[in-house]
């Protein structure tokens, strides 16, 4: 079934798969009704889905170089869109985003704009041209377009730095979910997550990752959307919450004015012993703040995320797998459509969750209720028990105020179904979805790094005569080494999930955006210019991060460009350096100019001919 006409059978195969998954969901629902414990259901959800991904990974094993690196360039447009969406939407998108919106309001939603708008840049400036180029990895493009191993090496450096920053957060997320659902310590959860991730990619490289990512997309999108529609229906918020929550958004603004958005002092929170990582509502839900600085903070964050999107190698390399240039371009549109389905739902989940918790007219509300009553609620007890929620009666009136209820952002996605009174089976589904989101992104990232180490560093720089068997062995070895290193760092829990994720975008845009884009759009761009662009961008960006980073030198940001936005500095320096040095050095030779002409038209053979 996975041989020969496999690609023609895709709609049927994934149709059966989706049906099977829904059947499994209903079976679990019945099991819950018949007294199977909540813990058992969580374990079944996780093991069942991971077993399927692993099965797909094993069935997609290959010893063919083109299949290993670019899935044989036979992934149909729409399926590549789904795989990219899974590749893209990380554990942070799935678990942390709705919580971020819940607490950060309008300002936080710059992430939504940034993480979708970047695809316009991908489709217009890069994806079709890189597909025509025919490279296996992103540094492969830099190395061939500009020539020379040093340029290739600089690209590898940026890629590894950006992807590694990103992947530790993903493995961290798989560890958190696995430990919670399976009831094992976090450290053990990280290694369970890593083994699951490697099972999907080791044997079949890009080919295996592609088909598991499609499967993971289906699970994660069902797991995200189904609870939202269910909650909305059950709470009488309308059939299609995306279009019916206007009055709830207005009601939240009214309640905010009524309660008052009180800010707690750090000292008061410390004295009360609020656990780290917990937040309380102190920002308006839907109101854009006043002032030029506030607008600039929104826009600068969106710019970083957009430009970073267009520079992240694990995303760009997904478009190397389509049959031709036209389908690569169209596939970007499908990717964004599939991503859109989740991203335009996240603010609705945040709104539903907030109205249920803070509106005294809702039976589910806790704000404005006597604290001893709230403490007796089952889900409140559970989350306080695991230090994910906390209550302090600052004004000693015995009533819970907005600024007295502390909760971790992740709880919005994880607990809202419980708050709304949905059966536990939904929480199992959500755990499976979060796991799928984190695993699929981790797989894409680890593969991007391992591929560039085996293809660019080993094959192109160290041993160009290596045979296929050796190259693929090195590629797999790279996967394991990078995976273990990432899991080891993740198990040390260095930074919160989102800080690290934003940094990956900033690193990628600092070093890679202009060398990639100008490589296609500016014939005059030279090798020296590209090297200057990559190094100057990376060094200045990193220096700025150290300068403003709260855990480093912690200096006052310049023009509000804080540690989440350091890519603005890096990319600007990169552009200037690249243009100045390119103009100061000799024009690229005729062969290079011809190469650029070739990638600008879809027809004809790819520029790189792989042996």
């Amino acid at each position: 079934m996975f041989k020969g006409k496999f690609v023609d059978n895709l709609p049927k195969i994934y149709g059966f798969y989706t049906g099977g998954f829904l059947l499994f969901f209903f079976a679990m629902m019945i099991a819950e009704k018949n007294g199977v414990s909540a813990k058992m259901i969580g374990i079944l959800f996780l093991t069942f889905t991971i077993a399927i991904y692993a099965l797909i990974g094993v069935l997609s094993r290959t010893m063919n170089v083109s299949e290993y690196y670019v899935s044989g360039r036979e992934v149909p447009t729409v399926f590549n869109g789904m795989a990219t969406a899974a590749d893209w939407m990380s554990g942070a998108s799935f678990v942390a985003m709705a919580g971020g919106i819940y607490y950060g309001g309008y300002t936080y939603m710059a992430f939504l704009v940034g993480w979708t708008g970047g695809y316009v840049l991908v489709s217009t400036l890069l994806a079709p041209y890189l597909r025509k180029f025919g490279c296996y990895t992103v540094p492969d493009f830099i190395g061939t377009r500009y020539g020379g191993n040093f340029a290739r090496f600089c690209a590898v450096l940026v890629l590894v730095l950006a992807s590694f920053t990103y992947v530790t957060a993903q493995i961290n997320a798989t560890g958190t979910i696995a430990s919670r659902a399976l009831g094992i310590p976090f450290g053990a959860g990280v290694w369970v997550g890593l083994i699951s991730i490697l099972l999907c990619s080791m044997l079949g490289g890009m080919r295996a990752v592609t088909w598991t990512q499609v499967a993971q997309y289906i699970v994660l999108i069902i797991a995200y959307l189904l609870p939202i529609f269910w909650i909305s229906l059950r709470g009488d918020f309308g059939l299609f919450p995306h279009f019916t929550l206007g009055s709830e958004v207005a009601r939240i603004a009214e309640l905010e004015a009524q309660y008052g958005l009180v800010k707690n002092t750090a000292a008061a929170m410390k004295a009360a012993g609020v656990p780290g990582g917990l937040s309380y509502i102190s920002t308006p839900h839907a109101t854009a703040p006043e002032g030029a600085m506030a607008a600039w903070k929104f826009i600068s964050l969106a710019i970083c995320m957009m430009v970073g999107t267009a520079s992240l190698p694990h995303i760009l390399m997904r478009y190397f797998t389509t049959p031709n240039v036209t389908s690569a371009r169209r596939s970007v549109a499908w990717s964004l459509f599939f991503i859109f389905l989740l991203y335009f739902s996240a603010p609705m989940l945040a709104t539903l969750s907030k109205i249920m918790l803070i509106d005294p007219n809702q039976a589910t509300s806790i704000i404005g209720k006597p604290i001893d009553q709230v403490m007796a609620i089952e889900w409140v007890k559970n989350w306080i028990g695991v230090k994910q929620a906390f209550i302090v009666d600052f004004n000693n009136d015995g009533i819970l105020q907005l600024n007295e209820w502390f909760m971790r952002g992740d709880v919005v996605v994880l607990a809202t179904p419980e708050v709304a009174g949905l059966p536990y089976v939904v929480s199992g589904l959500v755990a499976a979805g979060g796991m799928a989101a984190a695993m699929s992104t981790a797989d894409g990232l680890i593969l991007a790094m391992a591929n560039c180490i085996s293809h660019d560093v080993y094959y192109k720089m160290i041993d160009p005569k290596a045979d296929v068997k050796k190259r693929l062995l090195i590629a797999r070895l790279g996967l394991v080494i990078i995976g273990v290193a990432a899991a080891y760092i993740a198990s040390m829990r260095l930074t919160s999930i989102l800080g690290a994720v934003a940094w990956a975008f900033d690193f990628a845009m600092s070093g890679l955006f202009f060398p990639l884009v100008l490589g296609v759009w500016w014939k005059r761009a030279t090798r020296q210019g590209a090297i200057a662009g990559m190094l100057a961008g990376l060094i200045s960006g990193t220096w700025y991060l150290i300068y403003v980073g709260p855990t480093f030198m912690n200096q006052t940001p310049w023009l509000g460009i804080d540690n989440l936005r350091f890519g603005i500095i890096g990319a600007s320096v990169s552009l200037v350096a690249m243009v100045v040095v390119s103009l100061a050095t000799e024009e690229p030779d005729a062969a290079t100019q011809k190469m650029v002409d070739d990638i600008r038209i879809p027809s004809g053979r790819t520029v790189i001919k792989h042996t």
Partner: protein
Amino acid sequence: MATSKLEAHWNDTKGLMRITLALWFFFSIVIFMFGYQLNSVNVPLLGYPLSYYMCAQGSLAAFVILIFWSSGKQEEIDMKHGVSDAEKTED
């Protein structure tokens, strides 16, 4: 392939790129320069404040439509200059 033909194709492509990026710039940046001013504007029928609506749904949907539209336009340009690689059976 004649150079003039390539140039004509690339000029059309650049023109489309400029239009696409101008629309992208509008929906990702220009609108949010006026976030505060758009608070008081209500989206008809839905009832969300416009600034909230744009970052929660509006701009996101605009990007999806924009990419589908501009891919279609680029395919037309490729066809017109005879450099398309799309197979007739492609979806």
